[in-house]
C-alpha cells in the first residue's frame, strides 16, 4: 500500500499513532518488520510511536490507568522505536496555533518522489562506504532508543510529570457535560487528533499513520454520513488526508479487514494492550457509532461483501474543492475538524434546514465584499478599535455559543449542541475562536480600505 502510493519519502519522519488496539499494533509491527528486512522493499522512513492515554475521558481510576501505562511502556520498549507518551489531559495546555491553518504546501509530486529516492540512495551509498554496520543513522537511532521521549512536555515549564489532578478533573468535567455518547466519541476523536497533530509538529514529523482498517473505515463512512459529515468523507476515510497541509495523515491499514488483522496478530503473536474505551460494555444502541458498527457487522455475516462494497465506495470519493472557492484560496476552516466549511449560501437548503433564521444571519461569512460596508455585529464597529476586550465583550454579551458555532462545520455544530456549556472546552479552542473572530474583523476593515482605494484610483483615472 505504501509503495503503491509513493507518499512517504525516504528518510522522512513518520509518526505511528498507536492506540494499543489490534489494527494499530499490527501496523507498528509490520513497520518494524519492514524496517528490519534486508530487501529492496525495505521501508526507508524514520518512525516514531505516539500513544495517547485517554483514561481520564473514559472515567478510569488512577490505579487502572497506571497499570495500563505500565503495560503500554513495556510494549513500546520491545518495539524499540522512539516513542511519545501523552495524556489526553495535555489538551488543556495546547497552544491555539494547533488549530491554525498552515500555509506550507504538502511536499510531494511524482517527480519529487523520484528525486528524493535518488538523493536518499546516493546518501545511503556514501554511508555504506563508511561502514554498513556503524552507519551514523543506526548509531543515531540507538541513541534515540536510549533516551525515549517519555511524555514530552508540550510546554517546557509545565507538565514534566503526570497530568495534574486539576487537568484530569477538567477533562472529566468536559466529558460529563456532554449529553450523548455520540458527541462524546466525536469530541474524543477531535481532541486526540489535535494532540497527535501537535506532537507531530513539535517533533518534525511530516506524516502520521493511523491504523484504520477496512472494516473500521466502512463503519466510519456510514457513521459520518449519519453525523452530517458527508462533505468530508473523502478526507475522513481516504488513504491520505492533507487537510492539515504540513502534517499528512496516512491510513496504510485500509486494505486489511479486522478479521485479517486479528488473525495476523494471533499467528505472529503481535502484542497489543487492551484499554477500555469510552463505549466499552455500552449497549448496541448507545451511540450512532455503536449502532452503525452493529449494523455493518450484522449485514456482513449474511452478505460477506458488505464491508468491501462500502469500503470501495470510499475509495472512489474525490477530494474536489468546493465550487465557490478558487483552488488557491481555501475558504474558512472548521474550528474543530479543520475541514473547509461546508456552510454557505449555496447549500443553505440542506445545512440550514433546522437552523433558525437569526442564526442564519450570523453565519454569513463576515468577509463578503458586499457586506464590507455594513458590519453585521454593531459592537465592534471599525474605528472604535478592535481590542481584545471589545471583541470578547461582543462574544460575551451576545451569544458566546454562536460565536464558536459560526466557525464550525455542520457536523461539528450538531455535536457541540450536545455540550451543555462551551466553557469547559480546552482553552486553546476558545482562544483560537477568539483569534479568528478578531482576524475576521481586521480582514473586514482592510477590505474596506481596499475598496475605497480602488474607487479613488478609478476616479482619479477618469478625471
Amino acid at each position, binding site marked *: 500500500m505504501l509503495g503503491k502510493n509513493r507518499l512517504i519519502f525516504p528518510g522522512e519522519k513518520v509518526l505511528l499513532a498507536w492506540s494499543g488496539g*489490534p489494527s494499530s499494533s499490527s501496523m507498528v509491527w509490520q513497520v518494524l518488520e519492514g524496517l528490519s528486512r534486508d530487501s529492496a522493499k525495505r521501508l526507508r522512513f524514520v518512525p516514531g510511536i505516539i500513544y495517547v492515554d485517554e483514561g481520564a475521558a473514559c472515567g478510569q481510576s488512577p490505579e487502572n490507568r497506571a497499570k495500563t501505562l505500565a503495560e503500554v511502556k513495556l510494549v513500546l520498549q520491545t518495539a524499540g522505536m522512539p516513542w511519545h507518551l501523552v495524556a489526553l489531559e495535555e489538551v488543556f495546555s495546547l497552544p491555539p496555533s494547533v488549530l491554525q491553518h498552515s500555509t506550507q504546501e504538502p511536499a510531494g509530486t511524482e517527480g519529487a518522489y523520484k528525486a528524493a529516492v535518488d538523493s536518499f540512495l546516493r546518501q545511503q551509498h556514501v554511508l555504506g562506504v563508511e561502514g554498513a554496520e556503524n552507519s551514523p543513522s543506526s548509531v543515531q537511532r540507538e541513541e534515540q532508543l536510549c533516551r525515549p521521549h517519555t511524555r514530552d512536555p508540550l510546554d517546557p515549564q509545565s507538565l514534566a510529570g503526570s497530568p495534574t489532578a486539576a487537568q484530569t478533573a477538567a477533562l472529566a468535567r468536559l466529558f460529563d457535560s456532554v449529553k450523548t455518547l455520540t458527541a462524546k466519541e466525536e469530541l474524543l476523536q477531535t481532541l486526540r487528533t489535535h494532540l497527535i497533530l501537535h506532537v507531530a509538529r513539535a517533533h518534525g514529523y511530516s506524516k502520521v499513520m493511523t491504523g484504520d482498517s477496512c*472494516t*473500521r473505515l466502512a*463503519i466510519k463512512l456510514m457513521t459520518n454520513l449519519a453525523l452530517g459529515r458527508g462533505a468530508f468523507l473523502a478526507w475522513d476515510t481516504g488513504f491520505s488526508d492533507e487537510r492539515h497541509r504540513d502534517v499528512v495523515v496516512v491510513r496504510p491499514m485500509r486494505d486489511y479487514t*479486522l*478479521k485479517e*488483522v*486479528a*488473525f495476523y496478530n*494471533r*499467528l505472529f503473536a503481535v502484542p497489543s494492550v*487492551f484499554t*477500555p*474505551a*469510552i*463505549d*466499552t*460494555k*455500552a*449497549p*448496541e444502541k448507545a451511540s450512532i*457509532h*455503536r449502532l452503525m*458498527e*452493529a449494523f455493518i*457487522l*450484522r449485514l*456482513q*455475516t449474511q452478505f460477506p461483501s458488505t464491508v468491501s462494497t462500502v469500503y470501495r465506495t470510499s475509495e472512489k470519493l474525490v477530494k474536489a474543492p468546493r465550487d465557490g472557492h478558487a483552488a488557491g484560496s481555501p475558504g474558512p476552516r472548521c474550528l474543530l475538524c479543520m475541514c473547509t466549511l461546508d456552510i454557505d449560501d449555496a447549500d443553505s437548503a440542506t445545512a440550514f434546514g433546522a437552523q433558525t433564521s437569526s442564526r442564519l444571519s450570523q453565519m454569513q461569512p463576515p468577509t463578503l465584499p458586499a457586506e464590507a460596508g455594513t458590519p453585521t455585529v454593531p459592537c465592534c464597529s471599525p474605528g472604535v478599535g478592535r481590542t481584545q476586550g471589545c471583541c470578547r465583550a461582543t462574544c460575551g454579551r451576545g451569544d458566546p455559543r454562536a460565536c464558536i458555532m459560526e466557525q464550525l462545520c455542520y457536523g461539528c455544530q450538531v455535536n457541540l449542541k450536545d455540550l451543555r456549556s462551551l466553557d469547559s472546552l480546552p482553552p486553546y479552542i476558545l482562544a483560537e475562536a477568539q483569534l479568528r473572530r478578531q482576524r475576521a474583523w481586521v480582514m473586514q476593515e482592510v477590505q474596506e480600505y481596499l475598496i475605497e482605494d480602488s474607487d479613488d484610483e478609478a476616479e482619479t483615472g477618469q478625471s
Partner: protein
Amino acid sequence: MAAPLSVEVEFGGGAELLFDGVKKHQVTLPGQEEPWDIRNLLVWIKKNLLKERPELFIQGDSVRPGILVLINDADWELLGELDYQLQDQDNVLFISTLHGG
C-alpha cells in the same frame, strides 16, 4: 454418550471483560447424551462462565457479529461453525473486533 472433555477456552480483544477479565479458562465439559459441539459450548459458556451482559457476547444461538472464533488457531468458518464437534484438548479462542471490546 459423550465422555467428559477438557478444553481450553480463551477470550481476547476485550471479550474477556465479560468474563471477569480472565483470558484463559481451562474447563471440563461434563459427559452428556449428545456430542459436544460449538452450539452446546456457547450455551454452556453462557450458563457457567459469562459474568454480565450476555447480549454483548451471544446473539441468538451464535456469537455476536464482530466476534471471531478460532478453533485450534483455525477460523471456525472452515470447520463448520456451530456444528464443529469438540475434541479433547481443543483450544477455542474468541476475539472481539468490536470497538471498545
